[in-house]
């Protein structure tokens, strides 16, 4: 294409889309993908293949001819299972017919939740470091992201002070993800409790991304929606990707009180119609019979977490204890390098791919995200290489 026509095409993009920054992860992906023999700690998904029972259930549904649309909100059977599951695991209770919507991944749920609630100029508090899509999706919905910082000293937890200091008359909602990507940090019921008076005082809506809710080590995940009075002001988002190793299936769900859910359902039915039927079939099997598979995976993540966190500390990189997800978020401040330089040099010199923490927001400066969802053999090699790399720097 000529430069002229490229320019013309570019002008056709909306100003919002044109102004969105490309994902910071992209550049790293291109670099790492072009190299041979790279050990990657940069993968944000389970290293398990979806357990066979879910794959088999989906194949069988295809064989039996389940290839038509389902209802917009998803198969009722699946929503009933989601309701039972959420109640049993996280003590939150949603009505399967009025308060649960099956989506194309938690990603779609985040998108429609924000689009359903935002008017142009509405501010959304974003607790960072966080998943890379929150900011662009807020902007696409016409909102204005306002970032709340967290620090390693506070184990990357949201504090009441930080929350209160960024609220304005335009603040409509807050979005966060605990257990957190990229820090692995979690919030306990008591820590949520401390935020409630502020959320209530300013009548904020909470968008709680709980996609890593099953991946906690030591204690169960506390959903903010389970706290007294919080169900009404929470949009709970989760899915099957992380807990059941089903990333490629693109299946998630969103739960909220009926009025809000009806709003989201409007967007979903006009843009998506319904989530893929074969994926819903696999999800049904996951909730009915896949818990054992999930528990084995969680056990394995916990073991690997223990191993890598210890490894980073021995190398001399300060690392808080991640209580959930499958990421460690060590500080590389002691090396004197920026996260981006550290990651790039590490990749070039030792062929280990990690993600610079600032890709996930300002609070990630001086940190790298290391996914331990990879084999012990690879983790061991990666730690050896990183040790060599860090010792050369000092």
């Amino acid at each position, binding site marked *: 294409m000529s430069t002229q026509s490229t320019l013309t095409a570019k002008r056709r993009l909306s100003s919002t889309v044109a102004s969105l920054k490309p*994902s910071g*992860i992209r550049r*790293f*992906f291109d670099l*790492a*993908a072009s190299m041979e023999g*790279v050990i*990657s700690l*940069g*993968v*944000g*998904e389970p*290293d398990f*293949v979806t357990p066979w029972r879910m794959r088999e259930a989906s194949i069988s549904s295809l064989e039996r001819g389940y290839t038509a649309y389902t209802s917009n909100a998803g198969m009722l059977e699946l929503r009933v299972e989601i309701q039972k599951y959420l109640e049993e695991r996280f003590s939150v209770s949603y009505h399967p017919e009025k308060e649960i919507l099956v989506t194309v991944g938690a990603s779609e749920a985040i998108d429609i939740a924000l689009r359903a609630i935002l008017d142009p100029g509405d501010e959304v508090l974003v607790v960072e470091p966080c*998943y*890379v*899509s929150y900011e662009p999706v807020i902007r696409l919905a016409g909102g204005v992201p306002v970032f709340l910082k967290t620090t390693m000293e506070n184990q990357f937890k949201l504090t009441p002070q930080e929350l209160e200091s960024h609220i304005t008359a335009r603040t409509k909602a807050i979005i966060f993800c605990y257990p957190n*990507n990229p820090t692995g940090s979690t919030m306990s019921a008591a820590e949520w409790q401390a935020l409630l008076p502020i959320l209530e005082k300013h009548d904020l809506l909470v968008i709680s991304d709980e996609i890593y809710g099953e991946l906690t080590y030591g204690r169960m995940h506390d959903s903010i929606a389970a706290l007294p009075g919080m169900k009404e002001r929470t949009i709970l988002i989760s899915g099957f990707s992380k807990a059941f190793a089903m990333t490629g299936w693109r299946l998630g769900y969103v739960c909220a009180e009926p009025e809000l859910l009806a709003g989201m359902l409007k967007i979903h039915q006009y843009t998506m119609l319904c989530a893929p039927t074969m994926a819903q079939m696999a999800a049904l099997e996951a909730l009915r019979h896949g818990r054992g598979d999930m528990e084995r995976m969680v*056990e394995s993540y916990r*073991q*690997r977490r*223990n*191993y890598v966190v*210890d*490894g980073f500390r021995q190398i001399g990189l300060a690392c808080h204890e991640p209580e959930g997800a499958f990421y460690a978020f060590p500080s590389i401040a002691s090396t004197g390098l920026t996260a981006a330089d550290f990651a790039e040099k590490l990749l070039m010199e030792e062929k280990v*791919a990690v*993600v610079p923490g600032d*890709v996930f927001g300002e609070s990630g400066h001086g940190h790298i995200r290391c996914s331990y969802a*990879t084999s*012990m053999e690879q983790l*061991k090699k990666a730690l050896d290489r990183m040790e060599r790399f860090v010792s050369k720097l000092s």
Partner: protein
Amino acid sequence: MNRQKQMELLRLLEEDSRQDVEQLAKMLAEPKEEIEKAIAALEEENIIVKYPALINWERVDDHPYVTAMIDVKVTPKRDVGFDEVAKRICRFPEVQAVYLMSGASYDLSVVLEGKTMREVASFVSQKLATIDSVVSTATHFILQRYKHDGIELEDRDEDRRMVVTP
């Protein structure tokens, strides 16, 4: 070490018995000495019996062998039932496994390994069928091993994920 950790340790060793104690200690967040003590105790109790490697002999060219599963019908003996004859069959080094079966038209399932079919056949007729309480035998040769002890011998899961994802 609590029971849950002990179970975890067993599962880890079952998956890969060559992991060193230091690594196991880190993974289970226990002191090294605790892991050593636990393993020693598990060995003592005969819960951990042995640490063999799973070898795919079919890939070794100059190692011809055949495996047969033999259905053995026996007359149980008063007081000792099937144990006596089962233990007797176990003593032969060619015998890889002996199981007492339910619901079958036979009693013991014996897994036997030999260099050739002839060798296996001769073992069955000379050694097995001649045991007093053995009533009958039926020999089935294994043509191909696809999965053994929960491990698929040829298929290895490749990592199909992209190198870096958010």
